[in-house]
């Protein structure tokens, strides 16, 4: 297949040249920085173990929030499609008010606002110091971080689910109901499995967004990656450029594989309904 091969060659070449160009530009910036700024990579890299600890927190808070927001998202999507007007309106208001807020405002509102009114983290205070895999999951900041992140993301995920469910022809649901299935059986066996295929690409994108948004939790001094990077700075070690470059590298390590996965799934699901 010469056509296919030359296409890969072309894309390979373009990818290679773009990367080379970028490296060149970065190198030039680096050189010019070196005139005024002294790099301390060796010393900066010595705090990698701190970053690894931050990575654990970012990873676990993202993973937990993913599951919570997926579950919540499905429920809200069902609400948006409910037969009852009041349920539709309530979930509509929920989705639209959260979607249109900046995440940082949600975090502030939850942690400094709602926590005063509903101090649910106090219920867990006996286990405040319990750590699982080095992560203090009963810590108030962690709990409220998960809450803010999952509830905020649930509003986006709900809309993705709603779109997916609506993309499945209503005839599919009718066929299922005609066979005697209940509403929930038709959702579970017929609609949702098909909706999932449609929404996997946008859903993966949303999960990338979730990982990135978790960085804003530094504002409640949760020691995830971003906060960790900020804490490395001290008068004795003012290596700001190094610390934040390492931080960026950590995030890319998390998000680029997810993005590639999303791209891959998109391609695969688009090709045909099924290639087994």
């Amino acid at each position, binding site marked *: 297949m010469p056509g296919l091969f030359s296409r890969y060659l072309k894309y390979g070449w373009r990818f290679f040249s773009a990367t080379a160009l970028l490296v060149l530009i970065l190198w030039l910036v680096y050189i010019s920085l070196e005139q005024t700024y002294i790099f301390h990579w060796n010393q900066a890299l010595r705090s990698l173990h701190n970053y690894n600890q931050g990575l654990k927190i970012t990873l676990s808070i993202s993973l937990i929030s993913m599951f919570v927001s997926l579950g919540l998202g499905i429920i809200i999507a069902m609400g948006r499609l409910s037969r009852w007007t009041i349920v539709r309106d309530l979930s509509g208001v929920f989705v639209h008010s959260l979607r249109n807020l900046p995440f940082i405002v949600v975090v502030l509102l939850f942690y400094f606002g709602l926590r005063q009114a509903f101090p649910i983290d106090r219920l867990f205070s006996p286990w405040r110091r319990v750590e699982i895999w080095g992560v203090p999951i009963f810590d108030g900041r962690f709990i409220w971080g998960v809450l803010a992140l999952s509830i905020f993301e649930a509003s986006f995920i709900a809309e993705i689910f709603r779109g997916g469910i609506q993309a499945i022809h209503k005839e599919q649901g*009718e066929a299922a*109901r*005609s066979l*005697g299935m209940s509403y929930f059986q038709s959702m579970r*066996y017929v609609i949702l499995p098909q909706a999932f295929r449609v929404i996997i690409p946008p859903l993966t994108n949303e999960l990338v967004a979730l990982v990135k948004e978790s960085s804003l939790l530094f504002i409640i001094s949760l020691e995830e990656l971003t906060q960790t990077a900020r804490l490395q700075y001290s008068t004795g070690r003012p290596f700001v450029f190094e610390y934040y470059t390492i931080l960026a590298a950590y995030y890319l390590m998390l998000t680029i594989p997810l993005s590639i996965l999303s791209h891959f799934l998109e391609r695969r699901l688009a090709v045909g*309904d099924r290639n087994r």
Partner: protein
Amino acid sequence: MIEIVEVHKWFGRLYVLQGINLQVDEREVLVIAGASGSGKSTLLRCVNGLEKIQRGQITVNGISIQDSKSNLNRARQQIGIVFQNYNLFPHMTVLKNITIAPVKVKRMRTEEAKKRAMHLLERIGIPEKAKSYPEQLSGGQRQRVSIVRALAMEPTVMLFDEPTSALDPEMIKEVLDLMKELAQEKMTMIVVTHEMGFAREVADRVAFMADGQIVEVAPPAQFFEHPQDERARRFIEQIL
């Protein structure tokens, strides 16, 4: 067996069923004909509760369709319906399409359901397609699978909504033949179709719908030779 009494149905301002009265006896095959938009599909969909009626009564096997929901799921297990566009589940194999409802709704054991499904597939001559997906079948095969999918629930009534209109001419026969077999086995059937040959040969009675009403019901010979209603007469002239 199926009793439709004074049924009225409207979509907003569109008055689709304007007082339908119809009785279908056990083992009877009723063909419904009528112009496009006269409400044939809507009537069928009301019979298995996919559409809610605004007035009247529909009873199938003594279960009232418009009453409570728990009844409706139970009633639907006895009412098979076959749509024009097959509506097979594209993410399931042919076998799974057939077994899913008996297993999940009737709580039949999976092995048992599979065995029965294979019998049904053998009956329509495509047991080798059990592991295929619907998109890998021809239109005629899809429609026959959707018929046996309904049969797997062992319904006492089968509804057909233009089961052959989406098919290429050479595939129409295989579907009609299967329906004929069902009729010979004395399945109670309501068939909406434009296949007048089928109506002549298989139907016990033909009902003609126009403007949301059933304007004529007669045995096929009488319906085709001596239609009483003017609109039925014109319809027959057009079709023959």
